[in-house]
């Protein structure tokens, strides 16, 4: 038993190390001016990167806020579409259900480039290219599979029984959804929402193609620096990127939790 515990601890620590180490290096990089190979530590430190980002004339923060807003919109729309789809897949039985379950994942399996090329032409014709709506729509493609898939699993566990009980007690379908299904679904919505937000927030190619350079997101801002090999700038942007997603996730969790705690008294 002792021995097994020890092995378990070692494995866990190794895993944590591999998770944390890159982040530490990222943090160090974002403050270092010169860090030539094979030195273990940077030769000199500086805050050029942060100065650049916080300089209003570079609009980095503005674009960051815009990106958060865009991804939030995408997340909300994705969840709205995913809930009914996931309920159908998770609760009801119908012909071809398994095929649909696999087909839902298709956008992740098929490279988005393939789809986006075709969509781009259509969007240009419909006047959706280079617009906010167009970018939101195209972000839905890689996001919906995650939303539907995660919520389907939640619905499979939840089942329909609580909703049926609510109906029997006199709730109409809408009331049953709002008062019973939604609160029970909350933890699932949280994890699906986080996932979808990250997928949308880190979308580079689709935004670039459909946004046509007019819609600029944070990940697009980051890309040139990574490409040109400016490691310091790339690290600064990456750090901000990670901090943003983490903050958004934490805020989301706090909001959902406090909402459902605060909502209790509404029932009486």
């Amino acid at each position, binding site marked *: 038993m002792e021995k097994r515990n020890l092995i378990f601890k070692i494995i866990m620590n190794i895993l944590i190390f591999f998770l944390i180490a890159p982040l530490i290096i990222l943090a160090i990089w974002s403050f270092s001016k010169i860090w030539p190979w094979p030195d273990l530590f940077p030769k000199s430190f500086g805050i050029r990167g942060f100065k650049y980002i916080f300089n209003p004339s570079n609009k980095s923060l503005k674009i960051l806020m815009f990106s958060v807003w865009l991804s939030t919109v995408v997340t909300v729309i994705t969840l709205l579409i995913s809930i009914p789809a996931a309920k159908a897949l998770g609760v009801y039985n119908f012909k071809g259900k398994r095929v649909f379950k696999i087909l839902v994942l298709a956008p992740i399996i098929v490279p988005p480039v393939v789809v986006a090329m075709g969509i781009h032409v259509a969007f240009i014709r419909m006047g959706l290219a280079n617009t906010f709506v167009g970018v939101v729509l195209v972000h839905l493609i890689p996001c919906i599979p995650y939303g539907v898939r995660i919520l389907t699993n939640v619905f499979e566990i939840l089942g329909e029984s609580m909703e049926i*009980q*609510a109906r*029997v*007690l*006199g709730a109409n379908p809408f*009331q049953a959804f709002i*008062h019973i299904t939604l609160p029970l679904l909350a933890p699932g919505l949280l994890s699906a929402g986080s996932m979808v937000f990250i997928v949308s927030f880190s979308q580079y190619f689709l935004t670039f193609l459909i946004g046509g350079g007019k819609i600029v997101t944070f990940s697009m801002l980051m890309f040139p620096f990574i490409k040109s090999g400016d490691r310091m700038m790339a690290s600064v942007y990456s750090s901000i990127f990670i901090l943003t997603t983490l903050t958004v996730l934490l805020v989301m969790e706090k909001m959902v939790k406090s909402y459902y705690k605060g909502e*209790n008294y509404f*029932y*009486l």
Partner: protein
Amino acid sequence: MSQIQLKNISKHFEGKQVLKDINLFVKEGEMVSLLGPSGCGKTTTLKILAGLIEPDCGDILINGDSVLNIPVERRGVVIVFQDYLLFPHMTVEENVAFGLKMAKVKKSKRIKRVRDMIDLVQLNGHEKKYPRELSGGQRQRVAIARALAIEPRVLLLDEPFSNLDTRLRETMREFVCQIQKKLGITTILVTHDKEEALMTSDQVAIMLGGEIKQFGSPAEIYERPVSTIVADFFGEKNYIKGEIKDRFFICDVGKFKTDFNGFSKVKAMVRPEEIEISARDGENGILGIIKSKTYAGERVYYTIKTGNMEWKCILSSQKTFNVDEKVFIKIDFNKVVFFKDEE
């Protein structure tokens, strides 16, 4: 308070007939049991009554009006499910208030009604608890209070006691019966437990294979089953074929006096507990030998061989016999139920 009538209800699921021509009449304020093994269609019947499943054909009348076109939430038929299904994110009082809130009952009225219901099920002091903090019996009380809070026309109980342990089951059974009598609410109870059905109900419907085989008072069902299938549902029986002639029942083991003269070729059903065993021959005793004996606390199960016939007997354990002992069994053929022998 309502009377319910089910008229020729049938239901198929994927080509399989689950309910066959169900007819049932429940009087106002009565408690009726649907008794049958699992898979006999009891729960389906309840769901059809509540409006959760649509029947293929037939009609449901409550107080004489068809309710088939009334959606679940407005039918006034509440089911308490086997696993209670309390809403986990609500406290006890929020659970009880749920139906009232959905019906948009005023808050002051709602609070009063909830308090009354919690008094009724004796859960005072637990109002602010969440379902996960309650015991099985308490959960059931909440489920019943929640169902009764909306003053339903009909209360349906789906195997309400099967998740409780034996002791608690008896307490809750009594408790629910009391409340039912007190409120006089028309109730249908679904169960596979024969004792539960006999003890709680005014009327019992035996359901087997999607059909109601017999409907009557508990005593009627137990003492005068209409068929051997119904009789067998209440435990193993002894059957002996014979003939009725001049007020006598003539069979392999002898000739016995009886008042019965319905038909001549009969199959007599002798309940194991109605067989008397004694060491000495009285009047009309049949000589037999004890083949096996199973001790079960207050009762002892015997099998006794007489000629080529084996009898199952149940005796109180005050008087015991040993295996291979020679005994005389005595049967009162006036109490025996005779069925027409079909073969």
